[in-house]
C-alpha cells in the first residue's frame, strides 16, 4: 500500500511540474489560434483554429525584419563569443601568467553586475562609438553577459583536456593557434554546443539593452517588437497577435534545443568521463 501511495505521489508531482512549466506556453498557443471575440472566452482545449493572427503578424510591417534582426544578432553574438572564449580559455587554462587567477575572478564578477547597473555607462559608450540605433550596439552589449560564462565554462573544460595531447601537438610542430583549432576545438564540441546554445538563448531573449540602444522600428529585435506591438486603437491590446508572435519566436529555440539535445547532455557530463 505505501508503495502505491509513493508511486501515485511521485507521478502526481511529475504531472504538476510538467503542467506548471508547459501550461503558459500551451495557453499562448491556444490564444494565438483564436480570433476576434473568442479571445475573451476562457477555455483550456483547442476549440478554435484560426491562423489569422499568424498571418497578421507576419505580414504586418516590420515584424519579419525584426525576426531577421534577432537571428543575425544571436548568430553573430554566439560566433564572436565562442571565438573569443575559446582563445581566451586557452590562455587562461594553459598559459601561466601573472594575475591569471585575478583575471578569472574579474570575469566572473563582471557577469554578476545587474544589467540595469551598467545600462547608463554602456549607453554613453554606444553613443560615443556612434553605433546607437544599430545592431552593432547590441552585439557589443551582449558580449557583456555572454563572454563571462562562455569563458568560464570553456576554461574549465579545456583545463580537463589531457596536457599530453597538447604536448604531442607541440612536438608535432603545431602553433598555439593550430592546437586550438585542430586539436582542442574538435574535442570541445559538447562544451561549445552547450555554451553556444545558452548564449544564443540569452541574446535571443534579451530585452533591456535592446529597448534602450535601438529606437528604430526596423532595427528592433523580437522581444522588444512584441512588447511594442499595438492594436488598432490605443486601448486595445492585441493578445492574439502577441501570442502568435511569441510562438513564432519560441519555436526556433525549441528546434535548436531538440537538435542539440544529445550533445548538450553529453556536454554536461563530459568532464566526468574522459574518452
Amino acid at each position, binding site marked *: 500500500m505505501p508503495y502505491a501511495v509513493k508511486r501515485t505521489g511521485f507521478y502526481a508531482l511529475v504531472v504538476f511540474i510538467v503542467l506548471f512549466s508547459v501550461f503558459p506556453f500551451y495557453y499562448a498557443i491556444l490564444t494565438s489560434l483564436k480570433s476576434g471575440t473568442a479571445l475573451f472566452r476562457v477555455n483550456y482545449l483547442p476549440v478554435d483554429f484560426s491562423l489569422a493572427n499568424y498571418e497578421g503578424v507576419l505580414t504586418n510591417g516590420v515584424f519579419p525584419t525584426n525576426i531577421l534582426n534577432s537571428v543575425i544578432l544571436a548568430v553573430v553574438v554566439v560566433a564572436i563569443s565562442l571565438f573569443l572564449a575559446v582563445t581566451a580559455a586557452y590562455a587562461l587554462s594553459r598559459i601561466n601568467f601573472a594575475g591569471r587567477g585575478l583575471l578569472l575572478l574579474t570575469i566572473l564578477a563582471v557577469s554578476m553586475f545587474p544589467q540595469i547597473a551598467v545600462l547608463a555607462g554602456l549607453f554613453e559608450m554606444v553613443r560615443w562609438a556612434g553605433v546607437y540605433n544599430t545592431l552593432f550596439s547590441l552585439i557589443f552589449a551582449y558580449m557583456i553577459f555572454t563572454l563571462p560564462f562562455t569563458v568560464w565554462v570553456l576554461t574549465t573544460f579545456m583545463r580537463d583536456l*589531457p596536457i*599530453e*595531447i597538447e*604536448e*604531442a*601537438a*607541440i*612536438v*608535432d*610542430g*603545431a602553433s598555439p593557434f*593550430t592546437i586550438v583549432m*585542430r*586539436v582542442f576545438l*574538435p*574535442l570541445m564540441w559538447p562544451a561549445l554546443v552547450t555554451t553556444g546554445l545558452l548564449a544564443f538563448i540569452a541574446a535571443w531573449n534579451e530585452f533591456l539593452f535592446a529597448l534602450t540602444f535601438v529606437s528604430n522600428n526596423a532595427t528592433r529585435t523580437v522581444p522588444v517588437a512584441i512588447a511594442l506591438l499595438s492594436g488598432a486603437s490605443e486601448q486595445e491590446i492585441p493578445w492574439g497577435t502577441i501570442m502568435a508572435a511569441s510562438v513564432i519566436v519560441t519555436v526556433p529555440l525549441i528546434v535548436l534545443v531538440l537538435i542539440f539535445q544529445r550533445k548538450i547532455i553529453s556536454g554536461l557530463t563530459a568532464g566526468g568521463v574522459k*574518452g
Partner: protein
Amino acid sequence: MANLKLTKVRKAYGSVEVLHGIDLDIRAGEFVVFVGPSGCGKSTLLRVIAGLEDITGGTLEIGGRVVNALTPKQRGIAMVFQSYALYPHMTVYDNMAFGLTLEKGTGKEEIDRRVREAARILQIEPYLDRLPKALSGGQRQRVAIGRAITRDPQVFLFDEPLSNLDAALRVQTRIEIARLHERMEGTTMIYVTHDQVEAMTLADRIVVLNKGHVEQVGSPMELYNSPDNLFVAKFLGSPSMNILPATIESAGATTRVVPQGGSTVDLPVATPGSLQGKPAHLGIRPEDLSVSDDRAAPFRGTVVLTESLGEVTLVYIDIGRADEPFVAKLPGEVAMERGTRIGLTARPEAMRLFDESGQAIRSQMRRAA
C-alpha cells in the same frame, strides 16, 4: 645523425631546483636509457631535451648546435608519451600524418608514403582508418611510435612507453623497439624507464639519475659489474646488492675487511694505508652467494624466508643485523626449513668495497684493465 651534448644543464621550478647541473655526452645513433627512482628527474630531463620545458641554466646542443631556445620541432625530436597522447578525434592515419601536414613543402604523396611505411613497420596497417578508442593499449602505443617515426626525427625520445602495457605485451613491444633502433640506424634514442630489464636489454649506455644528479653513466654490464657508488650498486640488480657496514682491518695490496654480521674476508683490492681502521661498506650481490658447509664460511645465519621463483630461489637469512635480512639468490629449487642454520660464501673477486661516503674502492689493477 645527431649527437647530444648537455653541459651543466639545470632546471628549476620556481625556487625548487630539480636538475642540478647535468653533464652528458650522447653519441649519434646511440640508445641511452635514463633510470632512477621515482621523482629523481628522469622525465624532467627528457622534457628539457625535448623542449617542452625551458632550461634554467647550462647549454643543450643537438648535432653541434645550441638548441636552448628552439622549439621541439626545430630541434628535430620526436617523442612517445607514456599515456600515448593520441589525438582522440583523428583516425590512426591522421594521427600519424598530422605533424607532416603542418610542414610546408611535404606533398600529399610523400606524406602518404611515409605514413604507410611506418604503419608497415609497426604492423598497424589494418587499423589506419580506426579511431584510437577502437584500439587496444598495445596498438595505441604502436600508433604513438608510428607518429614519431613518420616525422623522421634526429632524436627519438621515449618516456616510459611500456608502463601502461601488460607484462607479455611489454616484452613484445620492447623487442620491437630494439628492432626499430637497429632499423633506424643513426637515429639517437633516449628512453626513460624504471624497469631494470628494459634498461639492461635496450641500452647501449645507461644513465643512472638520483635526486637530479647523474650518479653514473656506462654500458649495462659496466654498471652492473663495477658500480661507482653505493647508490648505483643498490639500484641495479634484483634483489638489490647486500650491503654490510664493515671495517678495514688492514690496507695494502689486498684488503682485509671485517663486515658486521660476518667474519673476516680478504679482498683482492688494493687500498691506501690511510684507510686502515676506517669504516667502509662491503657489497655482495645475492646471485654471487652460494651455500657452503665449510665452518669458515664468512656469512652464517638462520633462514627467515624462502621465495621460489621457479628458476631461482631467494633465501632471506638473519645474520644478526636487525631488520636487514641478507639475501641469497640460489639456482633451482631449494628446500629449506625456516630456522635452518646455513653458511654462505662468495668469491672474494665478486665482493665490492665502498668507502665511508659510498664511493667504490677499486684496485689499481682493475681500473687499468
